[in-house]
Each structure stands twice: as structure tokens, then as C-alpha cells.
């Protein structure tokens, strides 16, 4: 028997000017989620059930970039993705391109437990969600006013954001080609090989 342990995260790359009350909100949500996990672990719930339980809680709260409060695509829509892995026997499940599933991590769990595959995406994943009867919402449910504003800023800066940075416009020459599109303040060509 070992002692249990739990860690949660709400994303990396934080705006250094994040207002104190937003920082406090984030800490309260993280503490709330830790306590949900701790209570479950004290009741001998298995690790894979605990990670699903905690991530569901984080997806439902719009504060972080997942589920409700997800980042928006260039079209202003939400496309969510998730995965789960059980260290025992290294079983795993993953989903991508979800537009209506309220808790993507639970659909990933169903892919692991109830399908012969380990990854389903886009229309196949949405079809599987209906077969499994998981809770679904209109795409609008996942879109928050904050993120609509962030998307507008990102478009004005013609960049893709993984965090708060809105790089100044101004294009660097690189790889012999002018690359207007930037990702995280770097010319997209840095990622071009990928």
C-alpha cells in the first residue's frame, strides 16, 4: 500500500497581469477540484475514476480552456478534445473534434471501456456519443464572451494563441518566405516541418 497523491492543472502560460481576483478564482477552483479528488481517494475510488471525476469538474466550469470556456477556432466555433489513460494495463481512450459533448473526458473514457478502439474523432466521435447516450449541448453552450473577445484580439494580431500573449504585428522574414501567420509570437514556419 502506498499513500495516494493527486495533481491538477488548469493550463500553462498565464498573463502576468491577470487581475488578482481572477487569480483567486482560479485557485479556488483548483482547491475545489483537489478536494473532490481527495474525498474520492479517501473512499478508495480507483485512480482512473478519480481523474475522470476531477476533469469533468474542470470542463464544466468556464474558467479554464476546456469544455465550457473552450478556446475558439478561427471560425468562432468550439472543437474539443480529451484523453484518459489507466496505468494498469496501459488502457487508454481519446476523442477530438467534439462540438456538442458536454464532458469530452467521459466520452474518452467510453472509447476506452466500450469501444474496440483507442481514439475516435469528429463525426465518428459525435455518433459514438449519441450511441452511448452522453449529455450533449448546443455549441453555443461552450462559447463565453471572454473567449469571443480573445478571438477578436487574436485575429487582429493575425496569430494563434496558446496563452495570453498577443504578439505585436510585424512580420519577420524566415525560411526565405514571408509568413504572415504567427503562432505564439513565432513565425508559423518554426512549426512548418510539423
Amino acid at each position, binding site marked *: *500500500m*502506498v*499513500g*495516494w497523491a*493527486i*495533481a*491538477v*492543472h*488548469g*493550463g*500553462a*502560460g*498565464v*498573463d502576468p497581469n491577470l487581475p488578482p481576483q481572477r487569480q483567486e478564482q*482560479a*485557485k479556488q477552483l483548483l*482547491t475545489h477540484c*483537489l478536494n473532490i479528488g*481527495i474525498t474520492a*481517494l479517501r473512499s478508495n*475510488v*480507483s*485512480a*482512473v475514476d*478519480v*481523474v*475522470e471525476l*476531477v*476533469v469533468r469538474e474542470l*470542463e464544466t466550469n468556464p474558467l*479554464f480552456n476546456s469544455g465550457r470556456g*473552450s*478556446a*475558439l*477556432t*478561427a*471560425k468562432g466555433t*468550439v*472543437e474539443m*478534445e*480529451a*484523453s*484518459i489513460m*489507466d*496505468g*494498469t494495463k*496501459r488502457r*487508454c481512450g*481519446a476523442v477530438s*473534434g467534439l462540438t456538442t459533448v458536454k464532458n469530452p473526458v467521459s466520452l*474518452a473514457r467510453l472509447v476506452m471501456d466500450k469501444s474496440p478502439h*483507442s*481514439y475516435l*474523432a469528429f463525426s465518428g466521435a459525435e455518433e459514438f456519443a449519441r450511441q452511448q447516450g452522453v449529455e450533449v449541448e448546443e455549441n453555443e453552450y461552450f462559447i463565453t464572451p471572454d473567449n469571443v473577445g480573445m*478571438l477578436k484580439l*487574436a485575429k487582429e494580431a493575425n496569430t*494563434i*494563441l496558446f*496563452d495570453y500573449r498577443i504578439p505585436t504585428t510585424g512580420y519577420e522574414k524566415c525560411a526565405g518566405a514571408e509568413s504572415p501567420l504567427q503562432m505564439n509570437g513565432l513565425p508559423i514556419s518554426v*512549426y512548418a516541418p510539423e
Partner: protein
Amino acid sequence: TVGCAVVDSEGRCAAATSTGGLMNKMSGRIGDSPLIGAGTYACEVCGVSCTGEGEAIIRATLAREVAAVMEYKGLGLQDAVDYVIKHRLDEGQAGLIAVSNKGEVAYGFNCNGMFRGCATQDGFMEVGIWE
């Protein structure tokens, strides 16, 4: 992106990650979070969940790297986390949380802050954003 890594009192590890991806991303873009071995990984030894620049995490197979350096270099959990954050990300910026089958918890990041919280059975509990 959000994530959770857990080891239960029977030493079983698990991890899960969920995200909306990048703001202003192209439709159809897949990030690291759903990719087993990149954004999420769990085995007998540890459980890991990553966040940050998805393209860098994918190229680094970051989550699996933590387990790999524990298995093949014999590093402890925090040393393994520090090693992969330092040596596997190239110019990419990312963060990760991890637990081990010994009941340890660890995290690391090379970008500006990471929303994280961790707790262990002996009463340790920490919630933080900055260094």
C-alpha cells in the same frame, strides 16, 4: 487545457487531459491533449498530464518521456519532470503535472506560470500559479 494525474492507495496511476485547443486555431487541428504519449500518459510507474504549446509537446512526446527517463535513466519523479522540461522542449513552452506509484507528486513548466494544485495522503497540499 485542464488535466489531472492520480495515484491511488493501491499504487495504480492514471491521467486525463481535456482542452478546447488554441485560440484562432484552424478547424480540424489536433493538439497534444488527446494524443497518448504526448499530452497524456500513464503506466505502472507514473501518470502525466501536459499543457502548453501543443505542437512542441507532440514533437517531444513529453508525457511518455517522463516515464521513459524514470524507467531507463532511473530518475525519481521530480528529477524526471525537470529533465524533460529542460531538455525535450526545444524552443517550445509547456508545463506538466505527474504522480508516481510511490505516492509522489511533481510538476514543472518553462513558461509564464501554470495553474496547478497538488496533494498527498500525508497532508501536503499546494495550489499555485507562479513559480
